[in-house]
């Protein structure tokens, strides 16, 4: 099994899909000739040529819409939104057009597009280039929302996303683009299915994207036997897997990169609590970023993002007390 960087896994998935399906095309800003600002489309133009692989003007609304139009006429566009924030100039096409097109065509049209976007903090890109912003797309029936955490899941989930007949938002943890991992190109992963990346019996952590590694690192240090679930897909999320795990452990912690308020993690908690209230052994809670813009300064940005140390500390505490601990910014009285 070859080890490759996450960004190479992305490029490999696109290439493999383009090879096996001539309707797959890809475009975005500087993804063709320059092979992508994050080199996630290395070799794609060279192999598949300028008809199927294109650079676009800086026109996210225009090219996202173009993807929708191409999709309903038989193509499978995979487009790149360089930083998730740029979807703020194109959201209409994804949420209000693409995700409702099947419904409004009385089921006669499908919109098989994949909108890839790099997300997340940790690289010193500042407050307009470091968020994950799942909330922009998470409450959209008709749209799937997926986020890999390593090279293998990037490869397998992206292939599944491209094969999916409906629009998929594919959130790539930017900080992990350079990370290497083994990739089995035959391994299939299904959208909507979570992965248990570390089994355990005392407490369930649900994490996503770059927080999966944080959760894993914490799990290795925590004295209790923690189960770590890589959610992989936020919409539709794998209720069965999470409920099954919490049924076993009785304890639930969501580790989420988004700010405390308004993120996808509360959805997991609310759903689990509604279904398993009686059997929970401790208060379920979220470990998140604070309600603040992502700071540029390196020290602050590390502090801002949930860290293995913070996760460890909070989980040790809930194991002891059964109560939801305070996050660091309340503990330290800074917010």
């Amino acid at each position, binding site marked *: 099994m070859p080890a490759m960087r996450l960004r190479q896994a992305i490029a490999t998935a696109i290439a493999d899909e383009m090879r096996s399906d001539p309707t797959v095309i890809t475009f975005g800003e500087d993804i063709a000739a320059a092979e992508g600002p994050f080199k996630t489309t290395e070799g794609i133009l060279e192999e598949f040529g300028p008809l199927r692989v294109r650079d676009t003007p800086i026109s996210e609304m*225009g090219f996202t819409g173009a993807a929708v139009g191409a999709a309903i*006429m038989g*193509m499978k566009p995979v487009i790149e939104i360089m930083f998730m924030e740029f979807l703020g*100039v194109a959201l209409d*096409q994804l949420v*209000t057009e693409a995700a409702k097109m*099947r419904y409004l*065509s009385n*089921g006669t049209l499908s919109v098989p597009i994949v909108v890839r976007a790099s997300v997340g903090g940790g690289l010193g890109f500042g407050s307009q280039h470091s968020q994950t912003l799942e909330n922009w797309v998470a409450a959209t029936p008709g749209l799937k929302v997926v986020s890999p955490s390593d090279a293998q899941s990037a490869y397998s989930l992206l292939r599944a996303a491209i094969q999916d007949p409906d629009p998929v938002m594919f959130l790539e943890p930017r900080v992990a683009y350079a990370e290497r991992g083994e990739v089995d190109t035959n391994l299939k992963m299904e959208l909507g299915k979570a992965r248990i990346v570390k089994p355990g019996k005392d407490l369930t952590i649900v994490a996503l994207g770059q927080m999966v590694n944080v959760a894993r690192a914490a799990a290795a240090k925590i004295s209790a036997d923690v189960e770590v679930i890589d959610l992989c897909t936020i919409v539709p999320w794998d209720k069965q897997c999470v409920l099954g795990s919490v049924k076993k452990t009785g304890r639930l912690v969501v580790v989420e990169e988004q700010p405390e308020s308004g993120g996808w993690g509360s959805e997991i908690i609310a759903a689990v609590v509604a279904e398993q209230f009686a059997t929970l052994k401790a208060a379920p809670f979220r470990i998140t970023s604070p309600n603040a813009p992502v700071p540029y300064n390196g020290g602050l940005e590390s502090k801002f993002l949930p860290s293995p140390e913070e996760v460890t500390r909070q989980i040790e505490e809930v194991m002891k007390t059964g109560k939801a601990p305070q996050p660091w910014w309340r503990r330290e009285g800074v917010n």
Partner: protein
Amino acid sequence: MSAGMNRRRLVQTDPVAQFERALEIREFENQINGLFAAGTIRGTTHLCLGQEALAIGLAAVLRPTDPVFATYRSHGIALALGMTPESVMAEIMGKATGCCGGLGGSMHLCDMELGLLPTSAIIGGGLPIAAGTGLAFQIQGNDRVGVAVFGDGATNIGAFHETLNLAAIWKLPVVFICDNNVYAEYSRINLTTPIEDLHIRAESYAMPHYAIDGMDIDAVTTGITQAVERARSGGGPTFIEAKTYRFAGHSRADQALYRPEGELDKWKPRDPVLLMEQRLIKKGLLDSETAEKMKSSMKDVIENMVKVCQAAPEPTVDAMFKHIWTPKVRA
């Protein structure tokens, strides 16, 4: 051949049928107006009175395989393209027999057999999608053409700009048709747009452009044909501004009292349905008596159709969950 395809073929070949279709649109819209005024139908609606020639011209020139992305103001385009009055009216009434099963409503009409993509209620929403259909055709190497129809007001939204630029740089087989009916909601175009001839905006994209008389079916047909042929033969996109006039208010409740005095009257002699009739009579293809008969029988037909639709079933509850996700088909 389906009823819709038959209806489409008619407007493509027979000038009298075109006139009849224009009458149908006119009568349909008048009925809708009454039904909304009476509170029989809920929600909102946007009539295309005065814009019938553009709808007919589109249907006459385009093939059913040329997808059209239009707006909430598309009853006329839907009927012109061949959709049956029943499927449109039932949709507006929210009936299960409507083209979207009653889940879309007046602003969301669709018939893929005839090339009508789901109309969008977002200004500018359809433009990039139409460009995208052209992108698909370019890659597929066929000679289909994507078409976007939108209002004068839509030329001020960002998506318009981005789409025209993208279509131009990629030389996509697309035709952009701005139906300049002088108003965007309650605002006359001059209040929001500092130029008179909207088509000159295409200069920003080095895209061919021209205005056509949108009230004149022949001018419409000629103008659209030219652009469609350019697109079909690999010549890239064209921007057409069809000068029309919105004879009704913007939407259901609007009386259009903000119009300058006399403006409507000035446009009335240019009523596209009237012009069609006059022209057919002049050409000897129609006489006044027949025309009058056609009108009154169309009234009956549409009134009957309304009754049929009123008696049609409502959608069942499960319908609202039916078309959100595509069912998985395993190879």
